């Protein structure tokens, strides 16, 4: 092929968190790595320094760090049989459009998933009986384990936390529960790299209120780090200033965990690493026998096509694009909801969430003191941390009182009900309520179903003529019951805290809609597992169908936790990269027998 590049040991498709973590591991092991990134180079001091970063209009309202919809969007429908239409604005999830990917514009909440999240099927049967599991499956849920346990993931979580500099306080050190940390978390064998962030006024109120109600509040582990820190790669991060311009923004002072702040300074200097920016991978190219791929076909910004040969292909793009690239490459079989055959596109889930807003007369919440991951949470109603014997659902939600931002444009609607939304009355109300409003967020689990999946759209294509990805999704009964239950708990907390004029936005009350979501945590479609009939990837994130293809992203999650996905994505990236350089590269072939 014309414009064929020199062969690499590994080609990385998408240089966000997953791609950066893998490239760092693999180059340190001596492999020659080429990363191909659709977006442009973005750097802290030149693209979003402190004097540029807090530009809400540019970054949050106009979303300039995100990929333009004209480059690629998805189509959407609620159920099979409907005509899907293209999504025309970023709301439910956001593709990155730069080196660093969504890891540059994320908020920073840095959770380990619960041990239960990795073994939903097994642990549900163990605790509530096989019949309970069978009845959920009969109802349409498609519950399955990840093929990896929390204990197996713990060392990879630890590694990623060290790279990211995560702030927090341990709640379970080697099995010993520690008040003030999250006593429900899986055991960790050492403290967080940096101490927890400080409380805002609302966080203190939330902490005191929930503690008084008998719950176990703790500060959310954060990738907005609390003090200067040098990570294991020798890269220094700066302390967070609580500026509150985090999600949708870059970070100007090296405080938000991101590929820019944590990995790229070391990675970019390695002679065995190359990145091609503003270059889009169209698909992988299979060998004639179809059992492996020989590299990836790409197109440059100037429209020139090329080929990057490699021994190993790592697909580490956004969750949606990981699935789409597998389908465009013809690797594996498209999932069919009618037969449940095929694994690519299977187990798509969103995240089931709600918000509770209250007003505190005369309060000074000072929301301009913020951080993307700044908040206090209780996990008493998350995962399987509470008894579901008498409840008609499994799963739960983390319930947080948060101080993530005080962005003046975004918060304009945060005024008491009954006030005019325009004119002098609105101005007066906003000036008052900016200081008096407080929010609680329920970030809930989502269980996969037979009917929610991803596939290629038969009608709509991108700028290169390749089909868009089609999303078929609606809330399921289990998850709506879960969020109804946990939202009531959040309302009780808001009342107890003294909040008035309480407003509830339960996202699962109406059919899922890509323009009205408060989460952005979209998962599945290329899930890991120990059974090749129900998973696309084995427990080392290796394709069951082409053994030299690995894929890392939230696309690998078979079900969604009541948490942000990034830390789990980073931990899986460490796991996959180590499997490649410790085992696969010396002895290419399936790492797990099918």
């Amino acid at each position, binding site marked *: 092929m014309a414009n064929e590049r020199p062969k690499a040991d590994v080609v990385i498709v998408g240089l966000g968190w997953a791609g950066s973590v893998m490239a760092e591991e693999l180059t340190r092991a001596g492999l020659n790595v080429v990363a191909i990134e659709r977006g442009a180079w973005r750097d802290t*001091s030149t693209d979003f320094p402190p004097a540029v970063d807090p530009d809400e209009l540019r970054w949050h309202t106009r979303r300039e760090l995100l990929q333009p919809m004209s480059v690629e969007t998805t189509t959407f429908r609620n159920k099979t049989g409907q005509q899907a239409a293209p999504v025309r604005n970023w709301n439910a999830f956001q593709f990155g459009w730069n080196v660093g990917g969504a890891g540059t514009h994320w908020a920073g909440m840095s959770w380990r998933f619960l041990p239960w999240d990795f073994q939903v099927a097994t642990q549900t049967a163990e605790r509530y009986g096989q019949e309970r599991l069978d009845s959920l499956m009969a109802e349409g849920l498609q519950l399955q384990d990840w093929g990896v346990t929390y204990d197996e993931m713990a060392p990879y979580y630890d590694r990623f936390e060290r790279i990211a500099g995560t702030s927090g306080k341990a709640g379970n050190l080697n099995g010993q529960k520690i008040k003030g940390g999250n006593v429900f978390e899986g055991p960790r064998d050492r403290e967080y790299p940096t101490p927890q962030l400080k409380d805002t006024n609302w966080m203190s109120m939330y902490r005191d209120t929930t503690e008084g109600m008998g719950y176990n509040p703790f500060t959310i582990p954060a990738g907005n780090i609390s003090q200067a820190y040098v990570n294991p790669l020798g890269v220094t991060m700066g302390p967070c200033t609580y500026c509150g311009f985090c999600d949708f923004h870059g970070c100007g*002072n090296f405080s938000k965990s991101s590929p820019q702040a944590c990995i790229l300074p070391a990675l970019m200097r390695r002679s065995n690493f190359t990145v091609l920016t503003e270059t889009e991978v169209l698909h992988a190219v299979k060998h004639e026998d179809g059992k492996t791929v020989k590299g990836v076909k790409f197109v440059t910004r100037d429209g020139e096509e090329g080929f990057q040969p490699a021994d190993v292909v790592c697909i580490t793009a956004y969750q949606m694009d990981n699935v789409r690239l597998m389908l465009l490459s013809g690797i594996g079989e498209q999932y069919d909801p009618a037969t449940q055959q095929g694994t690519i596109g299977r187990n798509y889930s969103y995240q089931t969430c709600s918000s509770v807003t209250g007003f505190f007369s005369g309060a000074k919440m000072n929301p301009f003191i913020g951080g993307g991951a700044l908040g206090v949470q209780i996990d008493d109603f998350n995962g399987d941390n509470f008894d579901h014997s008498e409840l008609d659902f499994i799963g739960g939600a983390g319930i947080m009182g948060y101080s993530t931002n005080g962005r003046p444009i975004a918060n304009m609607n945060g005024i008491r009900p009954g006030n005019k939304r325009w004119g002098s009355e609105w101005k007066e109300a906003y000036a008052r309520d900016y200081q008096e409003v407080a929010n609680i967020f329920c970030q809930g689990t989502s269980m996969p179903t037979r009917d929610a999946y991803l596939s290629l759209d038969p009608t709509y294509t991108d700028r290169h003529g390749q089909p868009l990805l089609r999303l078929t999704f609606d809330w399921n009964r289990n998850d709506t019951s879960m969020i109804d239950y946990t939202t009531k708990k959040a309302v009780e907390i808001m009342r107890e805290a003294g909040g008035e004029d309480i407003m509830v936005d339960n996202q699962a009350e109406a059919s899922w809609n890509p323009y009205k979501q408060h989460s952005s945590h979209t998962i599945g479609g290329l899930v890991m597992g120990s059974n090749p009939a129900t998973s696309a990837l084995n427990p080392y994130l290796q394709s069951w169908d082409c053994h030299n293809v690995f894929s890392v992203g939230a696309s690998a999650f078979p079900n969604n936790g009541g948490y942000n996905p990034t830390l789990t994505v980073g931990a899986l990236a460490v796991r996959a990269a180590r499997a490649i350089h410790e085992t696969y590269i010396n002895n290419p072939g399936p790492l797990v027998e099918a």
Partner: protein
Amino acid sequence: MAKWIKIAGGVVVIAAVGAGVWAWDSLNTGRSKVAGDSVTLAEFTSDDAEAIERGEYVMRMGDCAACHTREAGEFAGGYEIATPFGTLVSSNITPDAETGIGGMTEKDFFNALRQGIGQHGMLYPAMPYTAYAKFTDQDMHDLWAYMSTVEPVQNDIDENGGMPFPFNIRLAMAGWDMLFFDNEGFEPVASESDAWNRGKYIVDGGGHCAACHSPRNALGAEVASAYLQGGNIGDWYAPDLTPNPHVGLGGSSAEDIATYLKTGTDGVAVAAGPMAEAVEHSLQYLTDEDALAVGTYLTALPASDTPAPKAASLAETDMVRLADVYEVNCSACHGLDGEGIEGMVPAFSANHGLLGDPTNMIHAMLKGTRAAHTEAAQTAAGMPSFAWKMDDTQVADILTYVRNSFGNGAEAVSPEAVAEMREALDAREPLRAASN
């Protein structure tokens, strides 16, 4: 760098006129007799792995790559040095026989490096042969062995093709050499420690520190009486390296200096601009022992007599206003108390580098700059440009504030100095509000 080359160019013309017998000392190549004169670099091979490794170390110390490595490949030359008289281009020093130095014998190599007598005629003093003259024969032999292992690259370079008459006459450099070139090797001082002597050898030889850190006279030569007391190199200022307690290294230990050379920061100051490049490409490779030797030598220098800077008198209202400006624009990285971030962002508190010549601060504000990337300190954080946001007066004011806060006191920075630098650097004008 441009300014002193201009001066050097001027003196060249004057000196060339008087060239004669006087040239003998500076052109005497007797020191090169120890070098072989039969095998060319293209032909030469060495199986002495230790010599090659030592030679690479000498190359790092001399920072050859800084000028000789650009897009064309390692040591293939092509770095353009703009001067008011035209453009000099760094030569191809790979062993390519046609376009590099492959045709040189070891003796030719010695003559070029230590005396500026090149294969195409006299070298321009942009090449620091005035310092490399101090290299020992052993270091030169090792460097020769190392250079023979460099991949030959075909890259034809016309070093002085961009220099119009009369500045393209290489022989004129002989005149400059007669006046200013000290054709002497390094002589250890018996009464000083080994570390001191090793430090002096690195500072005066391969390190060629004085090339930037000593002021130059009107004829472009280093002023011996102000040795390492700070030099202006155009749009950057190389600060005083003597133990002056106000604007120099007073208060820094030999260990602090060693840490700075190896990592680009001593925990307070952070190397930027040309010094970041020197650390990144050269000084970080010094052994711990050599880095400490440099520190030992520098801390033993006589302190310059530059007096303590006089604090600027700022009105209380200005201080209050500028404290806000500082908090909004600077504090996110440099800290509310000017404490910086250790190993990454310079502190303003207890940082002598801020108090003398403000050139570097103005440059950093207008164009931004970047710290060194080193094995020990990987971040290489950037200082953003404020040229788009602040006008000359605003830049001057915030610098004056920083120079007179956190325990500091120094002369005010003038808007005129900022304007001059903005012009010289072609830094952009600030954004203006649409109305008024």
